């Protein structure tokens, strides 16, 4: 016997260890399963189910209450009665049922036979055709077979049809008994329909043991009721740096009712989208299956957890709340963070490109307007906004307008002169507060003033013919329409142009007079139009405007540049390009004035003044601002937050930059010329928010073309017009394209306000409009406001004409006055109606009408034939309120009925045409000749 091998340890005791590690392994596996099973979104779905259940149960109650209990009771009783009736006929029914059943096998056999024969026929047909084409002998066989089978098939089909008929008849006979009960049941079901529907809904929603089992760990792949919801978006992509993947939004996993009406007041995340008519709804322009969520809101659509979805709070308070509730933190490593709700409109611009204003995106539009107003586009290149005008006045002739001292005082801080000015503060800001820097700023200011004056052309100015009357001037300013663009001290007008305050402390009377007479004389590119002022009017206004002075400003100091500061700055600036010794040598050879001019040039170039102002010597200079075309996607690490303690996000950076443009220099050691240069615009919080939204909307992210809102030719024309309209500020006076101007708000009597231009394209002839825009003539003589002459180019005029026409869905035709064809009788009738309806009462300016007040006055009808489109005139007479709500023009033909029955047989349509036709041949009576009103123009078609 072999010696047993030695033992190492006790096997049986080791089973204790075996058992322990096995148990541990089992336990850890169970832990895995449970951990994997637990997901936040499931809890949200459970909560939503409870909410929905509660709501549906209410619905059920409501449905139940609506039911007519009595009727249901009656129906049920009747059903019971018919049932007992049926019982009485039981044996008869059984017999009929049997009869019907007895037919079944025959029917089945007949059906099978017909089907089989049909199949054989099809097959024979195939072989016959095939063989015939191949010239095979067997074709004949199949032809024969086909011939044989045809009658059999016909017979089989006939048999089948007979049997079917018989069977149906038998079944009908059987059904007849139960028909009444069926009808009653149907009626009952009809009544209970709504309730049944809600009950079904409840059954669907209600938790049950089966659902719990199906949601249990490991089994939840079978048919879980808690499921991740996703919207796979075919046309949209997520951009993962040079690679694109299909966009998938799983937001609806928790936002379960986002596209269901009825959860408007539910707590988040279950609330219905607040703008269902605009988003998500199937009929809205942005249906959820096509657009999803993150294309507008950004964030990580693939995520189903609160934090990784990259929710972004809209303010500190919400952030704190989220931290408490969801342990929220910002996902540093995810680029496309959700847009906080106040900036969500930034996303609109991704698809709504090449439009001046995005419909319904008020904040974004305001941001864009502000950007234009403050000249952001002048310093910063932003693709899509290259064609904007300079925000500041032309300074190439500034010497004839203001003096050097004024410029120095102005640049200290423009707001000291005029608190509402758009001109930002450039000097003496937070990053130039040391004495040395202050000296440098002062030196730069004087240097700029010197440069501007030295490089100013002279312009010929004429002296006003007489001293104007300031009082009369004030009336003119208020009545001619200046307030559409300008405000007065104490009177809020438009803000497109400078407030008319302190001019007495700023400009010379000769300059102002010449400017008012013809702004382009001084500044060829100015947006200020020519109001065709008479010499007297201009003089009066000049007097009025100059009467307003700003004494504190005039008395304020105009610090002189210290020569050592000037020298130092020039040396600094030259250091980059030449040796120190050479620079000093050069300096030594310059006079003080030359030094100042050189420094002025350097300072203008450094501060970028030329971007907003036209300045001699800087015609081809590139603006100093950074390009912002893709600012919303700029890498967050490229933003220099410096020592400013704010949240590190793009939106916080942008808002802070707008609030304190030089703030990021805080705590940094920088030379004068290295400092941040963006000037201080003194923006309000609200303006900052809008501008931030605008900057966040700047992206070069390419959206698929089919997803973008692409304008067609007409829409493009409208957009081109809109840009011009916003430049010319037409809206300041006219209500147009959904906007009402400052001037209309200032005018108490709507009849005295500038006309509403909605639908103008349908109303006036393009040819007339073109001529009018080029050279306006009064249409409503009672208005004090004066349509200015904008000095439009042909191209601009064309743009505006097209804009009006396309806006009114009109086609463009430059044909001249077209007179509608008609007959003399109709004109006669028109004349008669014209008199009876007393058209001339309002449409003619005379002593009587002047007393009526502006609201009752109407345009001169002699202009109509040249000005108006005949189709429009018809519609206007028919129903003026539809075309222009609130017009004083009476509706004579309400509901297509005429008040005058004895003309043209009382046919309203004919009458309207008659009036129109008369109008196109109407000429105002020449009172001086004592003529009566009469059509003078020969009837065109009669002559022809």
């Amino acid at each position, binding site marked *: 016997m072999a010696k047993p091998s030695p*033992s190492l340890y*006790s*096997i*049986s*005791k080791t*089973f*204790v260890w*075996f*058992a322990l590690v*096995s*148990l541990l*392994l*089992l336990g850890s*596996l*169970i832990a*895995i*399963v449970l951990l994997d099973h637990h997901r936040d979104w499931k809890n949200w779905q459970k909560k939503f189910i409870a909410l929905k259940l509660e709501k549906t149960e209410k619905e059920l109650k409501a449905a139940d209450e609506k039911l007519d209990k009595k009727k249901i009771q009656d129906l049920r009783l009747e059903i019971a009665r018919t049932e007992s009736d049926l019982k009485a006929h039981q044996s008869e029914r059984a017999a009929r049922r049997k009869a019907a059943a007895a037919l079944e096998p025959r029917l089945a056999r007949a059906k099978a036979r017909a089907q089989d024969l049909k199949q054989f026929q*099809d097959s024979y047909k*195939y072989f016959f055709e095939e063989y015939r084409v191949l010239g095979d002998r067997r074709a004949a066989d199949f032809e024969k077979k086909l011939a044989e089978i045809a009658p059999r098939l016909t017979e089989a089909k006939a048999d089948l049809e007979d049997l079917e008929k018989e069977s149906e008849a038998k079944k009908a006979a059987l059904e007849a008994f139960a028909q009444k009960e069926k009808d009653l049941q149907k009626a009952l079901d009809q009544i209970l329909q709504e309730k049944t*529907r809600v009950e*079904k*809904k409840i059954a*669907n929603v209600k938790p049950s043991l089966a659902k719990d089992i199906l949601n249990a760990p*490991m089994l*939840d*792949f079978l048919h879980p009721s808690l*499921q*991740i919801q*996703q919207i*796979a978006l075919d046309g949209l992509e997520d951009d993962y740096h040079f690679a694109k993947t*299909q966009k*998938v939004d*799983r937001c609806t996993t928790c936002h379960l009712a986002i596209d269901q009406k009825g959860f408007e007041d539910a707590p988040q995340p279950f609330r219905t989208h607040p703008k269902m008519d605009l988003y998500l709804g199937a009929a809205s322009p942005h249906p959820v299956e096509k657009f999803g969520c993150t294309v507008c809101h950004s964030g990580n659509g693939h995520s189903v957890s609160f934090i990784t979805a990259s929710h972004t709070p809209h303010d500190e308070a919400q952030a704190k709340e989220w931290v408490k509730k969801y342990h929220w933190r910002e996902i540093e490593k995810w680029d496309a963070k959700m847009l906080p709700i106040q900036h969500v409109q930034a996303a609109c611009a991704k698809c709504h490109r090449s439009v001046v204003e995005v419909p319904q995106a008020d904040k974004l539009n305001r941001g864009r307007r502000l950007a234009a107003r403050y000249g952001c586009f002048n310093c910063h290149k932003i693709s899509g906004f290259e064609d904007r005008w300079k925000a500041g006045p032309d300074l190439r002739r500034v010497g004839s307008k203001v003096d050097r001292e004024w410029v120095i005082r102005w640049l200290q801080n423009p707001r000291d002169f005029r608190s509402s000015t758009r001109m930002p503060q450039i000097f003496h800001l937070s990053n130039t507060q040391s004495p040395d820097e202050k000296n440098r700023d002062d030196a730069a200011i004087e240097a700029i003033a010197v440069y501007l004056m030295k490089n100013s052309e002279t312009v010929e100015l004429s002296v006003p013919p007489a001293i104007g009357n300031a009082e009369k001037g004030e009336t003119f300013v208020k009545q001619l329409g200046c307030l559409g663009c300008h405000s007065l001290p104490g009177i809020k007008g438009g803000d497109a142009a400078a407030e008319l305050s302190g001019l007495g402390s700023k400009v010379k009377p000769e300059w102002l007079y010449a400017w008012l007479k013809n702004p382009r004389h001084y500044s060829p590119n100015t947006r200020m139009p020519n109001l065709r002022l008479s010499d007297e009017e201009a003089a009066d206004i000049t007097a009025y405007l100059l009467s307003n002075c700003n004494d504190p400003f005039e008395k304020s100091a105009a610090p002189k540049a210290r020569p050592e500061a000037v020298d130092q700055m020039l040396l600094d600036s030259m250091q980059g390009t030449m040796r120190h010794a050479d620079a000093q040598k050069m300096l030594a050879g310059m006079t003080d004035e030359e030094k100042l001019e050189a420094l002025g040039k350097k300072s203008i170039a450094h501060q970028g003044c030329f971007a907003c102002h036209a300045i001699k010597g800087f015609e081809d200079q590139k603006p100093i601002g950074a390009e912002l075309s893709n600012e919303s996607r700029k890498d967050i690490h490229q933003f220099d937050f410096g020592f400013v303690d704010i949240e590190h996000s793009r939106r916080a950076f942008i808002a802070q930059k707008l609030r304190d443009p030089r703030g990021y220099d805080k705590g940094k050691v920088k030379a004068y010329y290295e400092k941040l240069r963006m000037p201080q615009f003194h923006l309000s919080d609200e303006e900052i928010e809008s501008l931030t939204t605008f900057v966040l909307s700047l992206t070069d992210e390419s959206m698929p073309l089919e997803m973008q809102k692409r304008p067609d030719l007409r829409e493009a024309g409208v957009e081109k017009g809109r840009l011009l309209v916003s430049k010319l500020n037409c809206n300041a006076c006219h209500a147009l394209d959904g906007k009402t101007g400052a001037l209309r708000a200032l005018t108490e009597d709507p009849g005295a306000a500038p006309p509403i231009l909605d639908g103008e394209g349908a109303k006036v002839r393009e040819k007339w409009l073109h001529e009018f825009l080029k050279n306006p003539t009064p249409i409503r003589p009672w208005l004090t406001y004066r349509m200015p002459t904008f000095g439009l180019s042909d191209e601009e005029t064309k743009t505006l004409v097209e804009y009006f026409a396309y806006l009114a869905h009109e086609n463009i035709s430059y044909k001249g006055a077209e007179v509608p064809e008609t007959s003399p009788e109709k004109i006669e009738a028109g004349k008669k109606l014209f008199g009876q309806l007393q058209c001339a009462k309002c449409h003619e300016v005379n002593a009587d009408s002047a007393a009526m007040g502006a609201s009752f006055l109407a345009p001169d009808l002699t202009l109509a034939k040249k000005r108006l489109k005949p189709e429009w005139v018809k519609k206007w007479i028919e129903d003026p309120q539809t075309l222009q709500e609130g017009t004083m023009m009476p509706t004579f033909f309400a509901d297509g009925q005429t008040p005058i029955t004895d003309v043209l047989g009382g046919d309203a349509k004919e009458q309207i045409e008659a009036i129109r036709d008369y109008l196109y041949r109407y000429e105002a009576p020449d009172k001086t000749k004592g003529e009566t009103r009469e059509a003078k123009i020969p009837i065109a078609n009669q002559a022809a």
Partner: protein
Amino acid sequence: MNDTEKIDRRTFLSWFGLAWVSFAAATTGALSIILRFLFPNVVFEPPTSFKAGFPNEYETGVVDERWKAKYGVWIIRVAEGIYALSTICTHLGCTPNWLGGENKFKCPCHGRGFYKTGINFEGPAPRPLERYRISLAEDGQILVDKSKKFQQEKGEWNNPESFLTL
């Protein structure tokens, strides 16, 4: 046997049993985890079912072609109810056209003809068109589920899911 005697037999057996049972359970558990791993919680597949509006949007006796292009389905309302017909010809998978004037579907490829019910009656094609599962969603809209087909020749058109009774 020496070492087993050191702990008593009963204790040994219970440890032995516990060890093997929990080991077996853990192994089974691990295997089932692997199996469960094969079934993702969410898949990238186009939805097989779609909502086709409310029944009253469909006119009785009319073959509605609004979902033909997008989902490949005709929805047909008759007096008793509504059914959803596949637009794939059972012959070679072409798409037949609905000829309203002749009251039939005609396949442009090989001239197969089908009645409005989907039953084939002329030309080559082995069997009638297929119907899809149709039901009412909880909001009252018609729900068409293309993942389930009903074939007439298999007698599946008697299935209540193949026909929405109204």
